[in-house]
């Protein structure tokens, strides 16, 4: 019975396709697969905005929004209506075509990236041979849209925010891709369904998720931090923080275009969390073999919500990193650690399936983490806070 529940969406799709004439079936198959993504994920975005505001509120010892709907859970409806009816102000000196296209240019790559993620068993929209490469390739479109937004506003602060955001995104792309390379090395394929299948084996009832190995844990943590930086979330949200640069590269956007940027940012966050889940947390597989009866898409969704909850928690707890601190962190800590992770993954593969490899790999990673951390802390004069007054 649970197998049928697992494949219920695939069965429904074949049912609908069966009613159509044969000439239309390929097109209908594509349209049905694709149509689910702009329906499900913006819906998830709406719920997550409310959860985020309530979560942040609770972390900051206040209630979040609690007026609209039961416990405030219809707040996204109010936000959506506000965004739609607000006046769309375009600066007079702005470059109108580029200003209009920037939010569109952000949404298109982000929605494209969902096409290669496996949401459940046999539930991928486009099962490319080089799926992982496709994901990272369309990630580059987001940086171009950030530049378009910042430059077309003809505003010095927007431009500054855009340059900083692009520099941050480019710097953190390297640890992101290098930590994904370790997974590709172990599996031998860039196909995301293949990567999930490799994690679908169970030893002593525990799944072979890559996060349960030393190089996988290091890779997952690197991937998580780098994806925080790629989505411009705290503690890496200097380009768009309200207390720093008003709103950075989307200062001059109002109304629906701002809502589109907001949507694009959250959808990007979900997409990259989905990729992290696929690569390291086993995708749609269950962690323990006695839990495999739960449908695969339920596992994917719960893991996604878990990672989103961790992102919200980090946002409410950690302070912001300054620009030079950000860049130092990316180039002097994360990049060497990602490279050492690749070497450790190679050592893991060649040492044979016994207990010594756990010891050696963990020892190398712990030493590297400690030494690099000491290197970063070298010039910091950390002590009791001193106050200086203007004379």
């Amino acid at each position: 019975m649970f197998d049928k529940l697992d494949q219920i969406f695939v069965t429904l799709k074949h049912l609908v396709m069966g009613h159509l004439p044969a000439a239309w079936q390929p097109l209908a198959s594509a349209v049905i697969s694709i149509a689910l993504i702009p329906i499900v994920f913006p819906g998830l975005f709406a719920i997550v905005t409310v959860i985020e505001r309530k979560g942040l509120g609770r972390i900051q010892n206040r209630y979040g929004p609690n007026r609209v709907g039961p416990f405030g859970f219809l707040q996204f409806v109010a936000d959506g209506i506000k965004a739609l009816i607000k006046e769309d102000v375009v600066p007079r000196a702005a470059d109108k075509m580029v200003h209009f296209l920037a939010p569109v240019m952000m949404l298109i790559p982000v929605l494209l990236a969902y096409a290669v993620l496996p949401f459940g068993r046999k539930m991928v929209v486009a099962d490319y041979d080089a799926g992982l490469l496709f994901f990272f390739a369309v990630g580059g479109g987001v940086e171009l849209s950030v530049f378009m937004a910042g430059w077309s506003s003809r505003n010095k602060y927007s431009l500054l925010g855009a340059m900083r955001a692009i520099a941050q995104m480019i710097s953190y792309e390297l640890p992101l891709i290098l930590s994904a390379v370790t997974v590709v090395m172990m599996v031998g394929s860039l196909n995301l369904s293949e990567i999930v299948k490799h994690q679908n084996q169970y030893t002593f009832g525990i799944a072979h998720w890559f996060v349960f190995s030393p190089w996988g844990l290091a890779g997952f943590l690197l991937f998580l931090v780098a994806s925080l930086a790629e989505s411009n979330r705290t503690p890496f949200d200097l380009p768009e923080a309200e207390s720093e640069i008003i709103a950075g590269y989307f200062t001059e956007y109002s109304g629906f275009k701002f809502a589109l940027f907001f949507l694009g940012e959250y959808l990007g966050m979900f997409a990259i969390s989905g990729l992290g889940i696929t690569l390291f947390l086993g995708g749609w597989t269950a962690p323990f073999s006695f839990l495999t009866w739960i449908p695969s898409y339920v596992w994917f969704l719960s893991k996604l919500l878990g990672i989103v909850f961790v992102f919200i928690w980090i946002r409410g707890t950690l302070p912001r990193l300054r620009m030079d601190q950000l860049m130092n962190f990316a180039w002097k800590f994360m990049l060497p650690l990602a490279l050492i992770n690749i070497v450790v993954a190679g050592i893991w593969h060649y040492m044979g399936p016994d207990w010594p490899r756990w010891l050696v790999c963990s020892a190398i990673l712990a030493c590297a983490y400690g030494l690099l951390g000491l290197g970063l802390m070298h010039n910091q004069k950390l002590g009791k806070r001193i106050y200086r007054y203007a004379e």
Partner: protein
Amino acid sequence: MSLFLVITFVVTLLAAVAAMSLRNLVHCALMLAIAFSGIAAAYLQLNAEFAGFTEILVYVGAIAILIVMAILLTRSGEAPEKSVLTSGWLAGVVVTVMVFTTLGWAVLNSTALPPPPVEAPQATVKNIGDMLMTRYILPLEIIALMLTAAMIGAVIIAFKEDGKSKSSQGNETPIQIGNQPEPLPAGSVESRKEGVA
């Protein structure tokens, strides 16, 4: 020879012509990004998936952004007042026409072109990886060395020397955002400190 491929070619050519002829440099760079995406779409329709994805990753994701950053760093974002064409542009156009005529004539009248194959080739990632690691391992290592050398070279060329270079003295006025605030009258700071302490 599907209709989609012809449309992709036409869109790419229009974007390339626009990239080379617009006045505003940032518009040129954005049109270039569109041209690159068009070429990537053409690769995808010619069964060269890996090349298409690599094209988007390398060209749109890195080179287009590099070009716009360079445009901003050389302050070329505003529209130029004078002509955008160099002196001697006519000779350039003549040579272009000659080049294209030669290439086009060679393509259309050549008898050495092979007949089209029966089925589409498969370029799986596994085959590409096998080829790169067995037959083309030497070019791979040379490319790695070359990329390292290019990276180090680019950083050294564009490195801003502190102090003694000629460009850092003299006429560069810093960007002034608004007026400099006038200095506060001397009495107010002490009175504020008394209030706090």
